[in-house]
């Protein structure tokens, strides 16, 4: 089984970032040249950029009418320089919303690791790239680091909301983004592991409770939370803050928490926000319209 500690150890031994270890491992496993895999990952980044752009359209609305236009509002505020924590923060939140809204409105996205959590990595990576004026190459390699972390989570726990709740989707995406941002900012492999651990710890227990069973409420806004959490974790890790519980143990804890979540809180739309008076009302009116 792959482990975060395993990646950190290999990276330290070879004196390279985690992304290099992941890239070389994949090139071996898939029997493909590294350049081809890098090119494919670059295409993923480009799709992410396109989704972020598409999601900024203020006219965007989902089929249910529950989603659309949030990213445009936040981005507008950020561009006017009114964002609470500076334009950088506003843009990260706006992009997480944009990509998630693009997804909800049947736009094209990269599942990262899932469609429901697709806004977090693009928001973190694209915003860091822009703000810190990093070359595209850094973000591409950041995606390999994120993918390495995601592989560990998917192999040892789960990235499916139906199995592990939202912690497994938004939590995993947040942990992946945190590690990627740390590497892009020049942090050490161990710092990446710390960021991953901190981000996932923060959302342990988060339930999957989509209103009317749609990937909209609360999924879209949880993506915004996911990127803020990732940046907070990266900030701590880059400052040298360590996670008391190692990343691999946090991942296993996430799995165990997921296993103990009742089925009502694992994407069945029977608990949490889906089971509030308003949530039920939305579902009811939606299903009436939905009747085929």
């Amino acid at each position, binding site marked *: 089984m792959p482990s975060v500690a395993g990646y950190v150890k290999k990276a330290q031994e070879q004196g390279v970032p985690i992304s290099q270890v992941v890239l070389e491992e994949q090139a071996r496993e898939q029997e493909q040249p590294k350049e081809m895999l890098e090119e*494919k990952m670059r295409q993923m980044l480009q799709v992410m950029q396109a989704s972020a752009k598409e999601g900024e359209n203020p006219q965007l609305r989902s089929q*249910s009418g529950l989603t659309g236009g949030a990213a445009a509002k936040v981005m507008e505020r950020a561009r006017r320089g009114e964002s609470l924590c500076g334009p950088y923060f506003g843009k990260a939140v706006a992009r997480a919303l944009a990509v998630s809204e693009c997804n909800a409105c049947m736009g*094209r996205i990269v*599942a990262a*690791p899932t*469609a429901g959590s697709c806004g977090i990595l693009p928001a973190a990576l694209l915003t860091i790239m822009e703000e810190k004026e990093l070359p595209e190459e850094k973000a591409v390699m950041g995606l390999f680091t994120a993918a390495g972390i995601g*592989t560990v989570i998917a192999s040892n726990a789960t990235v499916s909301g139906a199995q592990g709740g939202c912690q497994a989707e938004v939590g995993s995406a947040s942990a992946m983004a945190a590690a990627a941002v740390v590497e892009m900012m020049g942090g050490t492999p161990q710092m990446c592991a710390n960021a991953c651990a901190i981000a996932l710890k923060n959302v342990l227990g988060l339930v999957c409770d989509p209103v*009317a*069973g749609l990937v909209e409420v609360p999924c879209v806004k949880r993506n915004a939370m996911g990127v803020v959490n990732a940046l907070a974790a990266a900030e701590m890790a880059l400052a040298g803050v360590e996670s008391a519980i190692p990343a691999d143990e946090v991942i296993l804890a996430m799995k165990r928490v997921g296993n103990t979540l009742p089925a009502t809180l694992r994407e069945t739309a029977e608990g949490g926000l889906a089971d509030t008076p308003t949530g039920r009302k939305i579902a009811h009116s939606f299903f009436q319209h939905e009747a*085929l």
Partner: protein
Amino acid sequence: MNVFDVIGPVMIGPSSSHTAGAVRIGNMAGALLPGKPVRAVIGLHGSFAKTGRGHGTDRALAAGIMGMLPSDSDIPRSLEIAKERGLDITFEEVELDGAHPNTALIQLWNRKGEMVTVQGASVGGGEILINSIDGMGVEITGNQPTLLVLHRDVPGVIAGVTNYLAMNGVNIGGFKLSRRKKGDTALMTLELDELPDGSVTDGIRCFPQISRCVLIAPLQ
């Protein structure tokens, strides 16, 4: 594990199970009908019926039938495109005993009146499982090249097909046979390690007891 299973696939939203998986079920049904479909009756079961429209499941299935991939930006417009192409699609809610909550039952007709019935489930993360073809039980994921052989249930047909594949250097990774009743029509499902070229299926079609042979490339 492939990194592009974690960062990827590129897909049209909003749901890997209700949208991307639905496209793939449609792909499989479309691939099984000889020629172009002119009519489709699509039964939606369970969650597909309940939240299908909000997730674009209807449009995803229609897009899949017409051969679009899960990343095709025409998916949201697929019902209009179907009309333009002269494909008449009807949706209905169905109750299928013991079926996975995300199941579709697709009936397709071509211009000659030939038809195929495919039941498939979207089992999560865009993965699918085709459960039955023309009422015969199968287990097809679409992740491997798959060879479907419809034949008369008589001795020696299976040996003939597997020997022929062996002679052509094609390795079989999975095998399933289902039949309506002894001596009637039977369906062989073979998962292959690599995609053979068209001459292999042409060769199999020459076998006297074989009425149809379809090779399905791995779905995207």
